[in-house]
């Protein structure tokens, strides 16, 4: 348990890298998405411009204390996952504060940001916030089912819940990745990931067209900047978690960047192919296909 300043600074550096990579990744994805549909797309540096603009906006509207705290909670959620995740395998510096707890901690810390955001948006008083949150939560409950099954399957497979140990067990080449040793768990996990990233077909929660307003409108300026910051960090952190669980982890930053990019790309790729689900459709879907895959993933280890 290392509470030293050095540790803190290394972690801060890691956070900075992740933030930037996250922003780059998102602009890249949007470009790819635009290319696929025949548009030109945004420049790769667009996120930085946006972020700078948002942080420097002077007008800022608040509906109250919880409204103010919402983004903080949200950012804490993303940062927290990063903090508790050993981001680079075998590196003392980049293992962050993962000594605080194991996989269970990360699974549950996901809720931290979600809850804070929900409450903050709730105080905004906008009716669509409530609708959006209710949909998000509804969908989230079922997204987590295959994820849990996959995690349980991994726990049985590796007899550990420590992420470092799971990554350690996958060292030894391409074929020792969970992807190959436990393909069903990987499948369940990756399907769950689709929902977690909230791209089409599971993006009713954000519903860019039907609900053009709501939290993103209520929150603007610095608040939105904080939310965007979190988005970038969270995407990379989540992808890194999946990388650690299913794709052998990363022993250096390059590996991390490649793997997280591919994982993220998977979700965008699927999103461009499928139309959006209604909420009960996605709930049912998650309780069917990925869940069954997850159950089989456990059964074969019994």
């Amino acid at each position, binding site marked *: 348990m290392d509470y030293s300043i050095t540790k803190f600074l290394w972690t801060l550096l890691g956070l900075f890298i992740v933030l930037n990579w996250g922003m780059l990744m998102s602009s890249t994805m949007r470009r790819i998405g635009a290319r696929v549909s025949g548009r030109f797309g945004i420049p790769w540096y667009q996120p930085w411009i946006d972020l700078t603009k948002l942080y420097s906006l002077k007008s800022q509207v608040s509906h109250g204390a919880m409204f103010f705290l919402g983004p903080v909670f949200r*950012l804490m959620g993303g*940062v927290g996952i990063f903090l508790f995740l050993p981001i680079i395998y075998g590196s003392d510096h980049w293992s962050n504060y993962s000594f605080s707890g*194991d996989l269970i901690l990360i699974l549950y810390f996901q809720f931290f940001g979600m*809850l804070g955001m929900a409450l903050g948006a709730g105080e905004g008083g906008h*009716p669509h916030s409530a*609708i959006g949150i209710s949909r998000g939560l509804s969908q989230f409950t079922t997204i987590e089912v295959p994820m849990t099954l996959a995690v349980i399957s991994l726990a049985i497979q590796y007899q550990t*819940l420590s992420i470092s140990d799971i990554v350690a067990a996958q060292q030894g080449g391409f074929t020792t990745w969970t992807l190959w040793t436990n393909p069903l768990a990987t499948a369940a996990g990756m399907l769950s990931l689709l929902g977690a990233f909230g791209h089409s077909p599971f993006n009713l929660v954000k519903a860019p067209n039907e609900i053009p307003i709501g939290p993103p409108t209520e929150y603007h300026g610095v608040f939105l900047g904080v939310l965007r910051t979190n988005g970038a960090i969270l995407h990379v952190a989540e992808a890194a978690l999946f990388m650690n669980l299913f794709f052998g982890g990363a022993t250096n930053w390059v590996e991390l960047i490649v793997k997280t990019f591919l994982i993220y790309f998977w979700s965008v790729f699927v999103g461009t192919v499928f139309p959006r689900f209604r909420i009960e459709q996605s*709930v049912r879907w998650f309780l069917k296909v990925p869940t069954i895959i997850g159950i089989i993933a456990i059964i074969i280890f019994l």
Partner: protein
Amino acid sequence: MVAPIYIIAVALGLAFLLGLLKSSSTNLGSLLMLAGLAFIAFVSGQWLYEFLINGRATEMIFTAGFKPPFSINLRMGMQEALLTTMINAAGLLSGLYLIDTLKKTGINSMTVLLVFVMSLNVIVMTRDIFNLFVFLEISSIATAGLVLLSSKGNAFQAGMKYLIATGIISGLFLIGIIFSYLYAGSLNIDELNAAHIMDIKGGAIAIFIIYVSVILELKPFPANGWGIDVYTAAKPGFSALISSGTATAGLYVAYKLLPLGGETWLPYFTIIGAITFIGSNLMGTRQQNPNRLLGYSSISQVGLLLMILGLSNQLGDNTLFIAFSILISHYAAKAGLFWLSGIVKSQNLEGWAVLRKQPFMLFLFGTFIFALIGFPPFPSFFGKWQLIMELATQENYLWMTLILTGSFIEAIYLFKWLGFAIKLDVPSNIVMKFEWNKYLPVYLMALTLYVIGFYVSPMVEGGAFINYIPLLFVLALFALDFLPVFVKNTISIAGIIYYMVDLFSQLENDLMRQIFAVIFLGGAVLTLMAGYNKKGTRAGFYPMALMMFAGLTGIIEANSMLEFFFSWEIMTAGSYFLIIRGKRSMPHGYSYMLFSIGGAYALLFGFALAYASGLDTTIAALGHITQLTTLAYTLLAVGFMTKTASLGLHIWLPGAHGEAESDVSPMVSAILLKAGVFGLMLLFLYMGTGTEGGDKLLYVLGWVGALTTLVGNLGAVFQEDAKRLLAYSSIGQLGYILFAVSIMTQLGWLAGFTYTINHFMFKAILFLVIGGIVVKLGTHNMYEMGGMIKKMPFSFIAVLISIIVIGGIPPLSGFAGKWLFYHAIIQKGWYFQGAVIFFAGIIAFLYLFKLIHSVFLGQLKDNHRNMKEISPWILIPSYLLIIGIMIFSAFPQKILQPIGEMLSVYFPESLHWEGTKAYTSLGYWDGTTIMIVVMTAFILLLGWLVLMSKKIKKVEQFNIVYAAERPFRPETTHVSYNIYAGYKKAVGFLVTPVVEIFWDSMSALLFDFAGWLRRIYSGNMQNYALHVVLFIVVFYLIALGGL
């Protein structure tokens, strides 16, 4: 010493003397009658005193100076003295009670009453069978006459029915007597008993006829329409005497004649008793008329006693104790209830709500009902306990089941009635007038119940150790009930704190009990504090609350199963009254009580099996059950699970907790439910792992726990009522605990303890705060609330912290539970249950969000603009609990490590600590570090945002962008009603109220069956006579048909 013969001489002499009086001198007549009744009561009482105190030998009275069998002899022994005292006391009090009626009907009726009571005395005392017949006839005729005290037209019909039925019975009785005389050459009961005429065919038939007559006199189901009608038609004052006096005497006759036929006849007594017990209780469920209901109840109790007599060869020396304790409860309670019925004068059960005008009478009514069902501290509780224990020792499970089933059915209608009295609107057309001669008998009977209960308790093994001190405290609060809330609250809290300190010194080295002591008593103090914001006297609240806490304390203190069960029932009674105090609580309190009683009987059965396995009365007996082990453990688990509201047994909880008063909800939710947890923990500790049946049970319970969680949480999601939402949430949380404890590893139990402690704290906070808000806003519906964060920031913070704990979000203590939980699950290998639980855990977020959003966030309603923060008396205990949560969150190791060490005695160690960091074979967790990391990061990020923020503009409530225009009515913009509609579409099928439908159809089935069955009571007296003959013939063909 006045010889017992003077009972007859004086009573008859006075009766004849009364005939000399002019018909106008009713005052003198009534005085003489009362003097006569008092005199015979004195004689029998004096003999009772002699036997009890001086240990006098049984006295034989030889009439005419000849020894039996040549002349009639009477016996006055302990039993006779006791029973005649009971009869005469009831007679005297009934005489007093009926005095106005008697004066109106004239001196003749007084004579009849006096002779009636005298005849019952002789029936008890006589040892001559023909003499018995004569006095039975006297009592029958007198009964038929006294029915007419009621001026109702149907009294003649009832009297006629009674005469016809008893006419047939007594005629046959004569044939039995004469033929037994033929073969035995004697009329003396003792000689007849010794004669063994069973071997001769005619003798056997004679015995049969005698038995069937005696049994028919007891009005066995279904040949008892004539008896029921008398109960219904007679003045309640007299029905009381039939129920308490005639039944007592009749039962004693059966007891006297038991040796006549020997053991081969006993099973028939038992079977007929059982049929009567269950059948009459079934009939009782359909009654609307209080007197008729009481009639059925009386007969059912007689059936139970008949059963006990039939089982006497198995119960051995305990028969008399068991029979007496049940009899005396029936005697006093039934007399009291009938007398009350005469005071209330309502022809339907609903009218009894008038008792609320006189709370003390309501209290007495409750006393009688509880005594009838067999709650402590009344004698029937001890009787039933001993009965079930003995039956289990004899492996007589069928009878145990029947007895408990019958008792349960009895509870169904008695508690419905009690509920009516407590909750229905007070009818304005009924007036209760205070008349001392009617009230005094009721008081005395209630007093009898308490005194005898206290007196008999040491006669049961383990009963001598029952701690009555908390109950005395409860009693003191009854006496102080007139004081204002502030004073009583302070007294209660002081008392509890004092007792807690005292208790802790006894509980050294027993961490588990200490934890529960903190939850029960510490919780009591905190939840009671909220009571300071109430005004007035809050009549009845404190005794009941303290009764519940007394029970809870007793559970912790109990060393023997009896003490445990005693306290368990006390707790149930107290909590029932607390729950039913809520405005709309009547049906919920009722279902709570029924489930509790069902559960208690399951427990009783289990305890009995434990006792029978080694004749060990301590709780440790649970550790070595050898009789029907699996069933015993299952029953015990089910018994405890009714209190933890596990799936299938949970339907009482939402209503009961949701509709209770705002500070009662936390008591019954945060504290009371833990009693079930404590029970389960005790059970599982003694049960251990490794037994085949036990392991299967645990596996099943694991699934039950998981599914309970799912159903509870899903149920909460779709609630619009804030308190019901919390109630469903409790079901879910208790499901976690059940699951965790069922895992039976150190980790699982640690998780169980963590959940227990957490649930105690957060549910107390939530119910206190939400309850306070509900009261303040005057609605339970969350969609009618909104925006309260501005008005009640402290409440908001309390709720926020609570829901973070429920959700298990790090860094608060809820996560400790989750972490331990998943490690335990994976170590145990219960993967699918784990997945279900996890799913349920996320579902929790749905309702948590709904709760906090709908109440505190969103748009403030116009009618709530002037709301203020809820009372500090609610917030103070809440914040004390928040401090507790914070400590537990930051230093989990301080609490969990000792618990873990305690558990390592029972389970292999699967968790070890290094400083603040916990390790299992699967992973690690450091609560303190997480707290530090999260707090640091949070503060830094908050600082970052504050740093980046410019001038923040506060905006008005409706300053939102809403489809290009600003809304003005908050109702249209507060989206809260049915917000999970889509979710419901997808998974709503999971919340189909299957369990409710199941229980509903069960009860419908029961009622329909009872309704169908009661058509035999057609009201036609000839049919009733036919029933009597049918009973005889069927009984004959079964018993002696092959002879």
